[in-house]
Every structure is written in C-alpha cells, then in structure tokens.
C-alpha cells in the first residue's frame, strides 16, 4: 500500500485532523506543510490561527503556534514579527476573520507593508458558527442568515480581498488568490508568500478558495462544481502582485 508522504512539519499527535469530510482546509494545510518543509523554516515559524474553522489548525503543525481571537490574528502576528523580525510568522484565518471583523487590521497591516504572511481561506460562509453569510458569500447564495439567498441590494457584493489589497500595498508585497482545486499552483503561491517574508520584501497574502460541503449542503460533485464553476468566476485565481515577476516564482 502506498501512503501519501506526510509533511515533516505536521504535528502527528493531532492527526487525523478534525475538519469535516470534504473540507478544503486539509488541502491548504497539506500544501503549507510541504512548503514549510521545502523552505526549511519549521524551527523558526510561528503559526497563529484565528477563531472559526481555521482554529482547528491550532496544533496542526510541529511549529510554535498560538491561538488568537476572532479577527485578531493579524495584529498578534504583527506584534511577534515586530518584536522578533528573524521569525517567520504565518497568520491563518477565514473570510469572516479577515474580511469582516478583522478587516481594519488586514487593511492597515497591508498599507504598512508588515512583513508577515497571511493565509485566508475563503469558503463563502462562517463554517464554525453554523453557516452564516460571510463577506464572500455569492449573490443568491443561501446561508443561515440569508435563507432566501444573498441579496446584494441589502448586503452588498462579495468582498474581493486580493484585489483591494493589491491596490493598497506598496511594491514588495505579494498578493495572490489560489484554489484548493489547483494544488500545484496553491503550493507555488504559498511558497512565494513565505519566500517574500523571508527576503523581507513586504506584506504577503494568499486567499485560498476552499470548500464547505457541510454548510453548502452539497455532495462531492456539487461541491467541486460550486468551487470551480460558481466561485472561481467571481474570484479569479492568480498572482495579483509579486516582487518575483512573471515566471520568477519557479
């Protein structure tokens, strides 16, 4: 039997992980683990996780890790990085934590070009609290607080984080959107975001489109369809800003 290789930076006592079947978080964290290994930064990485489903990653890695509060991962990571610039800080959050309750931190740390790496998992809803509308919920999408579908007249359109962060950040920032459906690209973007911090260039941010079959109430096929056919047209995948230039990210 062939077992898939487990990243060295994973913390084995916390496996198997606690995410729901079909959840995209496991894929993001797998890619992140492999990148941490490849960059050999496990011993100097500090991983901080937000509240929400991202919290379930709190002991995912054999890296020093800390829990924060909902939306406050960004300032905690900024505080650590400002205090100890030699550390590699990774903030891990959901769309609610990053774009809603923690948006002022995200926006201002981007403007200041804080040398932290933030990973935001976009699954278009608040998963942990039972599937409410998130800033990223698609127009017409049903959630617990938009049972008749999100009405943009009343609640606006989905937040496009990488787009506004790319506008706000100075040169040296790295801004990208990946998806769990394109694993190699996801890994490449995560690696660039960490390299960017290691080189001290500036703020690094990757939004990752992810899946939430539990709250979407979808089967495997529908889940993948929603991700690729519904989400991706609204949230285009790619690098929006990169100090490494085109093709310089290999």
């Amino acid at each position, binding site marked *: 039997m062939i077992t898939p290789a487990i990243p060295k930076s994973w913390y084995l006592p916390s496996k198997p992980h606690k995410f729901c079947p079909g959840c995209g978080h496991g894929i993001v964290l797998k890619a992140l683990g492999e990148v941490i290994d490849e960059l050999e930064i496990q011993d100097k990485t500090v991983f901080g996780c937000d509240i929400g489903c991202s919290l379930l990653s709190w002991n995912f890695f054999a890296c020093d890790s800390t829990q924060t509060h909902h939306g*406050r991962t960004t*300032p*905690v990571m900024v505080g*650590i990085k*400002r205090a*100890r610039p030699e550390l590699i800080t990774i903030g891990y959050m959901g769309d609610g934590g990053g774009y809603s309750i923690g948006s002022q931190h995200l926006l201002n740390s981007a403007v200041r070009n804080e040398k932290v790496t933030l990973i935001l998992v976009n699954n278009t809803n608040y998963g942990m609290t039972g599937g409410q509308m998130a800033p990223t919920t698609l127009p017409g999408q049903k959630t617990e607080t938009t049972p008749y579908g999100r009405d943009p007249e009343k609640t606006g359109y989905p937040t496009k984080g990488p787009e506004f962060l790319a506008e706000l950040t100075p040169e040296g920032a790295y801004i990208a959107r990946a998806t769990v459906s394109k694993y190699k690209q996801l890994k490449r973007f995560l690696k660039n975001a960490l390299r960017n911090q290691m080189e001290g260039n500036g703020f690094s941010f990757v939004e990752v489109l992810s899946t939430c079959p539990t709250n979407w109430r979808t089967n495997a096929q529908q889940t993948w369809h929603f991700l690729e056919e519904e989400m991706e047209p609204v949230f285009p995948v790619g690098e929006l800003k990169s100090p490494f230039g085109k093709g310089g990210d290999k």
Partner: protein
Amino acid sequence: MLKVVEETKKAFLTGNETIAWAALAAGADIMFGYPITPQNEVMHYWTRLAPKYGRDFLQTEDEISAGFTVCGAVQAGKKAFTATAGPGNVLMQEPFGMAEAMRLPIFAVIQQRGGPSSGTVVYSQQEVALTTYGGNGEGFRIVYSTATHQEIYDYTIKGFNVAWKYRWPTFLLGDGYQAKMREPLEMYDPEERGIKLEPTYPLVGLPGKIGEDREPQHLCNIYSLEEELYDVVTRLAAEYEKIVPELIEWQEHSCEDADIIILTHGIVSRAADDAVKALRAQGIKAGYFRPITLRPYPAQQLREAIAKSGAKKLLIAESSYGQFERLTKQEIYGETIKIETLYMPGVGIVDYDIINKVKSVL
C-alpha cells in the same frame, strides 16, 4: 544596554513623560499605541527617546490592534507595553482578556478620562471597574493606582517587573491630571537601587530544533469542553490567589483612634491626606486609608484598620459614581461600619470637599 538614567537625578516632568522615561529605565523594548487623550504624550516622549536607546514603536490602526500587538510581542519574549484611556480602554479589554487567559506579561498604562462614552478628555476615576474586572473574565489582573509622579516612575518599573515575574496583565491606573500635570520626582536607574529587572523569555519562537531539542509550543485560549475550561480557570484562580499577599500594597495613617476613616485611591488620596491633617488640626479624629493595588485589593488590611480604630464611619471619596465603593464593598462584605460617600464623577476632589463632607456626616 545603554543606561537610560546614569545617576539619580531630580526632574520636573508631566506624568506622561515620566512614564516614557520609566519604561525606558525598566528595559521596555517596544510600545504599541493609538492616539487618545490624555495619554498621547506617552507616545510623543517614547517616540523621541526610544530610538536613542534602540527601542521600538508602532502606531497601530486602533486600540484593539495595539493590545493584540503587545500580546504578540510579549509572546515573542519582548517587554512590550501600551497606554490608553476611556473608549480605548474599552476596546483593549479584548486583548487584556487574552492576556489573562494566556498569562501574558503585558503592561498597560490607563490614563482615566471622563465617561461614559467619549465623556471628557480631561480626568476621572471612572475606569476602575473596567481596569480591575473588565472583559469576559475574572479579573486576574494587577492594578496599581498611583497618586504622585514619583509613584508613576516607581510603579512603571515595578509594573514591568511584576508582569514578567508573575505573568498576569499589569496596569498602571492614572488619570488625566496625573498625565498632564508637572511635578518634581527623582529618576533613577533601577539596578543601581538594587531593583533587579526581571528577565524575559519567549513563549513562541524558542531556540532549538523541534523534535530533537524541544517540542513545539501550542498556546491555547479556547477549549472544547466546559470541564477543560473549568480546570483552567480554577487553576488560574488558585495561582492568582496564592500570590495576592505578595502583591498587595496600601497606605494608612491616623486610623488608630479615628472616628471616621477616609478611603480614597489614586490622585484623590492627596486631597484625603490633606483633609485628614486639617481635620485633625481642628480636633476631628479622621483616619486615612488608601489601596495602592486595586487588584488585588488590600481587604484584610482595611478590615484591620476599621477594627483597631473602632471608627463608626467610612467615607469613600471618588471621582466616579460609586465604582470604587462597589469594589470596596465586595471586598469587605460583612463589616458593619456605616459607609458614607462623596461621588464627584469626572471632576477633581480637593481637601475642602472632603473636609465639608466629613463635617456634614459626623
């Protein structure tokens, strides 16, 4: 490290400037702050002085961020602090709560302004409840309520030390008057006075190879089970209560034969001290009691002062509407001494106010 105060010297400073100097002398590495009156000059002086001593500063986007960046920096093993007031203190209760839960040695200066809401930018003692028991926790905090610039200097140095020694969030509770007024004090190098500066150490970003030299750190503040949290909070409570006797500080005089004890804290205790002396000169037996630590509260010491004096009345004077009285009552529950109050929310209290009140109730 470059010495901040080479030799003991007299100075004539504002309270905010005193804090900046004392934080430097205490070895603070970095301040995070957000503008709010009346603490702004703490940042103004810090940003001018800090670079000369290799220290750092970040102006954050709000007080929530200032509090959480402090939490991050102390986790990384650096002496970090902030200063705030009023609505900023409200916002900082969230990170202060995290510091309580995770035993983070943060130090925060609160320069009380008027409330509720934006209130005034001037002065009050209305942040007593917030600073001692704010947040969704149990008040596992250390709060020093200062009265003079000398105390501001002394307790800023002590505050950093106590925070790092005991690992509870530690506060210097001042007010707008103390922030803005100038008065003489003596600045000194703590180590010259035999005050050892507590060493710092990181909770994350530890040295060594994970899996070979050490295990990874996984720091928590949220728990899956009620029972887990129960264990955590009862352990925190036991650890906090154990150190209470080492932390408690108070001032007391003229209580032995007092008919009335005047209970104040912070800057109001200056007026109380003058009032007691004036009343004594007029043949009225007044006593003086002042908690320096509001958390933990010198409850036993106050009970003893009441008992030995046989005083019939306790006059609580405060620049708020009963916050200090409520704090006191819960601490001395069961005492039968009659409590009189002088509430002057958001305005200063002078000796004259206290003397008049004493005469009206005796």
